[in-house]
């Protein structure tokens, strides 16, 4: 009886004739990525292994375009063609974590030969109808949703940890697994689905053609350079008094430069106090936006037009003069989230040291001391003219008799080791290994505390602690 019922259900489902798969739909693939993401809490470990699926679609050159976050930290990558049960191996050609786009290709040549490369269309308009294609929630059959363009804005990408680019918001449902799938209008791709806002209903985002083209042009030479940024802190000039003091004429608008990172490409060209009047010919309003086809966008949308290493024509008000400057654009000194990399660390006698970097702060921010956050965020702002060297954090202790009585706190900023200033893990290693004395002496910034280890005892326990805590290597520099 149960057998019969099952058959009946199958028959019912199969009864209506399935519509033929359109060529466009055939070009949408499902990607399955086995990733190993490093865990900055256990920097000595190789990382957590996870399997996730996403979407991608065939583009010119026999390649598949998808999101960077779909294929990040990959150890193994396979894809399924639409309506095909056979997994195929794939490899990454280029990956852009700042714009969340990646290009992959089949390991086996010719696999995509019969499929149509989806053509890239133009920037969609507000209210335009769009259709998404993809494999949400890991399903094996292609799903599509419909909606309209509800907003065009510059937004931060989650994957990069905040890099902002032009993006399009739609009410077409975009769910996990949709990532990397095409958003289509007519027979052209007008975007790549990449993220949604969980708390809001029907708010999904896709990456529009200008950003996709920028990425594809960038990787044409085989390497990805990324999108340039300005690396300056800007202040709005909504206040009439602030505008007058800055010397703006009646009706003139702009934003004030408050801080220029001394290592940024703009250093030496832009100065604190400058008022940016226009960028690439676009007049900037007092809130830093510019006007484009009846709406306003943040100025990053201007910078998105440029390649790394280019210069942007900038009109600046400085000390009463209006100057036309070519501001060089380059790689940001403020790092995005790190991928395709493993944490750097040094373990000595059970004391675990790591560099103070973005991943450390992201991983530890709830536990990290205000001292650490201060060093990360404020130290450079306080010395605007010179580049602040990095710093090393004593992140934690692997308990052992040799270190158990040092009575130290964790998340301490290392100031000096054996009377040598320490800014990098290399400094630390040199200070430890170059010390002939009977003690290692660690001093920390902000807290009045000194930690002392007996050098001979620490050296003797070092290997044992590594074995006990299964730390394969005592350092990754």
């Amino acid at each position: 009886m149960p057998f019969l019922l099952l058959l009946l259900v199958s028959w019912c489902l199969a009864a209506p004739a399935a519509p033929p798969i359109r060529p466009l739909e055939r070009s949408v693939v499902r990607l399955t990525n086995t990733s190993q993401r490093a865990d900055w809490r256990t920097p000595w470990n190789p990382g957590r292994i996870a399997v996730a699926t996403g979407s991608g679609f065939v583009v010119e050159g026999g390649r598949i375009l998808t999101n960077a976050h779909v294929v990040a930290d990959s150890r193994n990558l396979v894809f399924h063609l639409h309506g095909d049960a056979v997994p195929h191996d794939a490899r990454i050609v280029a990956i852009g974590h700042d714009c969340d786009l990646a290009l992959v290709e089949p390991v086996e040549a010719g696999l995509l030969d019969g499929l149509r490369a989806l053509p890239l269309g133009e920037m969609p308009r507000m209210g335009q109808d769009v259709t998404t294609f993809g494999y949400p929630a890991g399903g094996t059959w292609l799903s599509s949703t419909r909606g309209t363009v509800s907003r065009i804005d510059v937004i931060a990408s989650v994957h990069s940890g905040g890099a902002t680019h032009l993006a399009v918001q739609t009410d077409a449902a975009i769910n996990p697994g949709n990532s990397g799938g095409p958003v289509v209008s007519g027979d052209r791709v007008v975007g790549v689905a990449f993220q949604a806002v969980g708390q809001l209903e029907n708010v999904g985002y896709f990456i529009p053609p200008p950003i996709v083209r920028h990425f594809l042009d960038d990787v044409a030479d085989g390497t990805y350079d990324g999108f340039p940024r300005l690396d300056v802190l800007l202040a709005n000039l909504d206040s009439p008094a602030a505008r007058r003091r800055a010397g703006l004429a009646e009706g003139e608008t702009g934003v004030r430069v408050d801080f220029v990172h001394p290592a940024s490409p703009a250093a030496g060209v832009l100065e604190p106090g400058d008022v940016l009047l226009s960028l690439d010919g676009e007049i900037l309003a007092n809130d830093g936006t510019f006007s484009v086809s009846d709406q306003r966008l943040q100025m990053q949308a201007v910078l998105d037009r440029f390649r790394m290493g280019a210069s942007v024509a900038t009109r600046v008000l400085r000390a009463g003069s209006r100057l036309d400057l070519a501001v060089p654009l380059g790689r940001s000194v403020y790092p995005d989230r790190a991928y395709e990399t493993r944490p750097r660390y040094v373990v000595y006698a059970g004391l675990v040291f790591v560099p103070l970097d973005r991943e450390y702060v992201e991983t530890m921010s709830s536990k990290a001391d205000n001292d650490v956050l201060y060093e990360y965020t404020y130290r450079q702002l306080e010395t605007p003219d010179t580049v602040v060297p990095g710093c090393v954090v004593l992140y934690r202790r692997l308990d052992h008799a040799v270190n158990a009585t040092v009575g130290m706190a964790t998340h301490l900023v290392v100031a000096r080791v054996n009377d040598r200033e320490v800014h990098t893990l290399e400094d630390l290693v040199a200070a430890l290994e170059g010390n002939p004395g009977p003690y290692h002496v660690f001093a920390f910034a902000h807290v009045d505390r000194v930690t002392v280890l007996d050098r001979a005892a620490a050296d003797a326990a070092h290997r044992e602690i590594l074995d006990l805590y299964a730390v394969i290597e005592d350092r990754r520099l």
Partner: protein
Amino acid sequence: MNLLALLLPAALAAAPLEDGVVTLKVTWQSWEVGQPWVKTNPTLRVAQAVVVDGRPEPVLLTTAQMVAFATHIRASKHGEPGESPARVLYEDREANLALVSVDDPTFFRDLEPVRLARRPFASGEVSITRWRDNQFEISRGRVSRAVVADSATGVLKYVGLRVQTDIQGGGWSEPVFVGGALAGLATGHSQSDMQVLPATFLGVWLDEVRATGGMRPWAGQIGAVFQEIRSPALAGWLGLESPRGILVRRVAQGGSACGVLRPDDILLAIDGHEIDGDGNIRQPPYGLLWFEVLLSRHPAGDTVPVRLLRDGAVHELAMPLRTYTGASWLVPADRTDPPAYLMAGGLVFREFDETYPTWATELRILGQLNRTAQTADRRRVVVLSSVLADPYNLGYQGFADLPVATVNGRPIDAVSDLAEALEHPLEGFHVVRFLPNPRLNEIVLDAGTLDEATRRIAEAYGIPAIWRPGVPPPDLGPACEQGPAGAGGGLPATRSWWPGP
């Protein structure tokens, strides 16, 4: 205060417990943090107090936390409906104790002063008492252990008792008795655990107040940062054979340690007690206690002997105890005085203190300065706490919680500096600069229309006075001797918090 000089020693009398316990109804009101020109909604606090001897009339002893921010106090007794107006006669916030007098001289006619249990103890049965719904309630309790407790209204550390009890909703200065004598006053209570300020401390404090009329309040903190010498390696590096004593890392200007202790000294003994490598002293019947509790045995003005190791030699020195409280911190704690503020053009500036919510990033960083000592050139942190929106401050509405560095080029170390700086506009503008932060560096206001805008905004938002200079910070006295640079093995200096001098 002169009145107190006439206080008499407690009489030895065996009276029922309820004859020594009265209820205080305290109406209180603290300052509104965001609008420091007004106070919060008034609230009633019901506390217990005990009767102690005084002249011409007895007085009431309660914890200082019960009379904090009081606007009006009345006392009642024996569960009777009548209430007599009362007032704070003397308050010692470091000791967390207060004496309250009752206006009506006949109030004490049918009351008896309590007897103090002056012998220290850390175990045994006690009775916790209070008036509730016109009935005298006695709950059983058991002293579980002694702890190093922080004064609820100050920074003083004292030996406190923990009492296990099934009383509900305690911690309102309930008198705790042992064998008919007062064992202490409750200072806190959660679940089954009650914190008690013991009568040993009450006795020392009352003796002092009786002897001097309350002219010598308790000192607070020693004013130094210490590090334990737990590890044999650290002890060896410091030249000790084994861990003992406590390492002095930093000495605060204005504290008792200033001029006596120096960075890199190893403090071996204080007030006759040897200090171990964990910073503890052994004090029967309590056991091991953090050495700073010894300060609770003395009022400011007393001198305690210290023994220390400096450059390999033992020194015996005398340390006069000076008042060093939360008011001497860069971010003051335990304040009850009206906060200093200034409103100009809708910008509300105030002095940052522990009452300020520290969720905003910049102030979270500043919150780190809690328990950091003031120095002669940095006494207070002034913050822009909010902007009262008005056309005058267009462009800055919504900014809040930013620490001020300068106004019109003048460094700002107090609200009074702000008032002075606003007298000197720069070419027709007022320029407020903040400590470096990623949100906003500078606010520019039109100087010509400031006064008019301030008046308009004060009127619209109901601000009675546009500034209050507040209580000036305590005198720090001369700078401390910091010792020769690099002494004691060359402990490295830490990086400074503040950009430039």
